[in-house]
């Protein structure tokens, strides 16, 4: 158990020391939600309606952005070989590693989504619902990104490949998380159900993806 904790802590530390921790994803997310209105145009109805979805989509993209380094670095510098030989077993290690990096870098997203929702003219309650849904979605998104990242580790232009692999797997998470925000906006009582489903997907991801990630890592050691 202390092994799990130390892997988690190390990955969080590495994310801080090398990449500025949460600054990067936060700024990317912020940039995405600021640029989108520039591209979409300023019509308030459109923005408010598209807001929750856009935010969910931007969150997905910022998770993808950092996915490349998640396993790519370890592959290039030989750490992956070492991880495969640890006493705690690869699946547990991958779980701790992925969540350690993911949570250390992505925790500001829900707060920014809340502020962003208000900026887009989404009502307060719906914005809160959106923020909660993002919070619930992050573990699932991060673990799926980790799975794709492990498969594509060290491949040329792996960023694109990872996006292509992970995006389809993330579809359900995206639908429920953005759905929670949207139904919140439309004053719909399905919001809570959507939130619950999002959380359930994250739990499912915690239970299942570590084995997928470990298998992916093993397949790349050959």
């Amino acid at each position: 158990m202390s092994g799990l904790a130390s892997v988690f802590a190390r990955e969080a530390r590495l994310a801080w020391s090398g990449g500025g921790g949460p600054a990067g994803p936060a700024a990317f997310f912020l940039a995405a939600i600021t640029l989108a209105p520039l591209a979409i145009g300023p019509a308030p109805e459109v923005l408010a309606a598209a807001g929750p979805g856009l935010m969910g989509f931007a969150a997905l993209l910022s998770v993808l952005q950092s996915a490349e380094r998640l396993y790519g670095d370890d592959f290039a510098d030989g750490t992956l070989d070492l991880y495969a030989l640890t006493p705690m077993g690869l699946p547990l290690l991958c779980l701790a590693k992925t969540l350690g990096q993911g949570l250390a870098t992505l925790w500001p997203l829900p707060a920014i989504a809340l502020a962003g929702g208000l900026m887009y003219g989404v009502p307060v309650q719906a914005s809160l619902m959106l923020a909660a849904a993002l919070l619930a979605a992050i573990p699932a998104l991060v673990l799926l990104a980790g799975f794709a990242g492990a498969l594509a580790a060290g491949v040329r232009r792996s960023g694109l490949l990872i996006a292509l692999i992970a995006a389809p797997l993330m579809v359900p998470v995206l639908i429920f998380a953005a759905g929670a925000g949207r139904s919140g906006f439309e004053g719909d009582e399905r919001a809570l159900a959507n939130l619950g489903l999002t959380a359930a997907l994250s739990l499912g991801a915690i239970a299942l993806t570590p084995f997928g990630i470990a298998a992916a890592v093993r397949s790349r050691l050959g």
Partner: protein
Amino acid sequence: MLSYFSNPQRFDGLARRAIPVLGVLTVLLLAAGVWLSFFGSPPDYQQGETVRIMYVHVPAAYMAMALYAALAGASFVFFVWRHALADAAAEVIAPIGAVFTVLALVTGSLWGKPMWGTWWEWDARMTSVLVLLLVYLGYMALRAALEDAQQAARAGAVLAMAGVINLVIVKFSVEWWSSLHQPASVIRFDGPTIHASQLWPLAVMALGYTMLAAWLVFYRLRSRALIQRARQTERRKLQAARQAQSTEGGLT
């Protein structure tokens, strides 16, 4: 059964005999299916003549999913038993499945214009088939990106198995999200709800598509094996030549 085909000669023997049979079956079934679709079935009382697109569309959509299931199944076999033929099958199935998926998308959207007045709608079923296409593309891209054949095989197998989730989504999307698209009416627990005059051409076309896919898979598997064998002999020759050269005292 598995170990039986691990002998390449034996598989080649089977494939050599199966390919012409499948080819003939494909042509016959598709010809019969097309005839039935156009002349052997009435226009729909609601949809008129456009219903005939169904006979192209529905089997294509069904093949898109069935081939993914086959891809995942072959990947599972390879992952557990390391059976090289299973990996070859997975590699060969993917592009064929992607083509059927494109066909389902194109015919579906051709159908959508007369039926719903739009080429495309972000409806659950249609979108999830588009996502299925992405899964196929991702699988092929991953294999293409990994230079080491062994790694490509293993990583591809892992991904293909994970992608099965998407099949579930395609299948149930119509029930989960209220949708424009037809719910299943042929493959249901309580039996088909479709009229027999439509069921027949549909069934023949579906069988024809299946034979076509099987024919393509066997054909490509065999040509892949032949290419590999040719490469191997070439390499052996090269090696022999080099050995002869080095004993003359040239290089080392």
